[in-house]
């Protein structure tokens, strides 16, 4: 038995039995899983977790699952001290959480692993999502592992080449003859009509809990403490809220001593509704129409934007948007200092850390963790002009002359 007890509305407190449901029926706010933390605290210890599997399921006691896990080998990804990058940015204690190294190359595997496990528990034989990249690949891979049918909805504007990393797992790819808004509307309708586990709709509260494990890992990998500063990307804002929830739960369970973490949201300037609200001092997120190369975090109407905004404010953190050229520079800087190749979302995070360090918002001696949530190869087209070879003749003389090296 897990320690999950109900789905609870953050806004009005209404509770619901654990079921496939994402919005509170009375106020239409997002629901989240609530647990019996007292019972959980009795069972959990640092030692028990450390003795568990080397992956996200070492935190199983903190996740809302009953059945056998659908696990493709996700989690416990590298956590490295980034001294070269830190030196470049003027930070003495900068760390990278490298979640590029998940089975489908992004942190989404954490969320989807829990969501698909729940889908099986709820008796669904079909899972679905709407995505053109990271989420699509992860859902398709987990469905393959779980022997479930997967429907992946994509807007017709998406290039077939972008779908290879999803199609290889053989989901049913459903190309929708319409724009992003049309696909959004269609999916909401499909969920009402069919008994499918829609990963980021009716399974969303469980999906969310999976994201939490990235925060848990960071605290454990730091030797059971919370960072001084977190810089993480936000699309819907869900991941950002769950990093915070993970730290908060560890504190509640007595597994870390305190949480004084300043939480910083990173968004692409072409899709920054949460940052806009932060800067305007507003509590309402005004949706935008995204226009950025950072497609994986291009969400104009973020489902968890309000909660993410509150966390950034209340933690004494902040929010920062960087433009596409800063994102690309960030991708290159991370690759060239730390040997880690991330996608534009990671470039946005590095660009944000750079700005926050330069402005003095983040201080040199603070322990900063930059969350790098997706790998570079899927989006390498943004970097076409980095390929600048020098040409030589196939002779030693030519090599020495062109490279300016004499034996």
């Amino acid at each position: 038995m897990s320690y999950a007890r109900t789905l609870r509305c953050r806004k009005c407190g209404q509770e619901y039995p654990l079921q496939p449901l994402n919005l509170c029926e009375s106020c239409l706010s997002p629901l989240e899983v609530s647990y019996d933390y007292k019972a959980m605290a009795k069972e959990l210890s640092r030692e028990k977790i450390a003795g568990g599997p080397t992956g996200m399921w070492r935190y199983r006691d903190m996740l809302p699952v009953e059945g056998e896990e659908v696990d493709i080998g996700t989690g416990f990804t590298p956590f490295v001290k980034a001294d070269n990058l830190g030196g470049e940015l003027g930070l003495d204690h900068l760390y990278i959480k490298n979640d590029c190294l998940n089975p489908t190359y992004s942190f989404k595997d954490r969320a989807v692993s829990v969501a698909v496990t729940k889908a099986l528990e709820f008796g669904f034989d079909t899972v679905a999502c709407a995505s053109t990249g990271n989420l699509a690949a992860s859902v398709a891979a987990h469905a393959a592992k779980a022997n479930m049918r997967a429907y992946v909805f994509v807007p017709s504007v998406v290039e077939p080449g972008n779908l290879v990393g999803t199609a290889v797992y053989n989901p049913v790819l459903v190309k929708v003859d319409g724009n992003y808004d049309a696909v959004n509307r269609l999916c909401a309708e499909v969920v009402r009509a069919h008994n499918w586990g829609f990963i980021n709709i009716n399974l969303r509260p469980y999906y969310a809990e999976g994201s939490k494990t990235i925060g848990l890992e960071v605290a454990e990998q730091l030797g059971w403490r919370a960072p001084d500063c977190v810089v993480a990307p936000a699309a819907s804002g869900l991941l950002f809220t769950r990093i915070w929830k993970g730290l908060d739960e560890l504190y509640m369970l007595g597994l870390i001593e305190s949480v004084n973490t300043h939480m910083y949201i990173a968004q692409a300037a072409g899709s920054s509704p949460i940052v806009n609200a932060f800067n305007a001092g507003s509590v309402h997120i005004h949706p935008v129409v995204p226009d950025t190369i950072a497609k994986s975090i291009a969400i104009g109407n973020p489902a968890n934007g309000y909660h993410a905004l509150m966390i950034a404010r209340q933690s004494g953190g902040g929010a920062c948007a960087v433009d596409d050229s800063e994102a690309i520079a960030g991708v290159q800087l991370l690759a060239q200092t730390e040997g880690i190749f991330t996608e534009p979302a990671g470039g946005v995070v590095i660009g944000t850390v750079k700005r926050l360090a330069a402005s003095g918002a983040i201080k040199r001696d603070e322990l900063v963790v930059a969350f790098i949530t997706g790998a570079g190869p899927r989006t390498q087209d943004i970097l076409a002009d980095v390929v600048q070879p020098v040409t030589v003749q196939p002779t030693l003389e030519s090599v020495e002359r062109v490279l300016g090296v004499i034996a």
Partner: protein
Amino acid sequence: MGKRQVMFTFPESLTKEPTIYDIGHRFKVVTNIRRADVTESRGWVVLELEGEEQDIEQGIAWVASKGIRVDPVMGDVVEG
């Protein structure tokens, strides 16, 4: 009959118009407000529209044509 959960975001010029009353009268949809915050200058309303799919669709198109932004309450579902 179907239901649609949407958020209307009003620009400054339209916060004083009875848009929600109007949509219920002009189209065969029942409006049910769940959350709202409307000030002098700007505002938003989260509500559920109930009616035939076609009526909901027409009602939303009419609201949007007045310059009010209409978004699904659950946020964008299509992820990158």
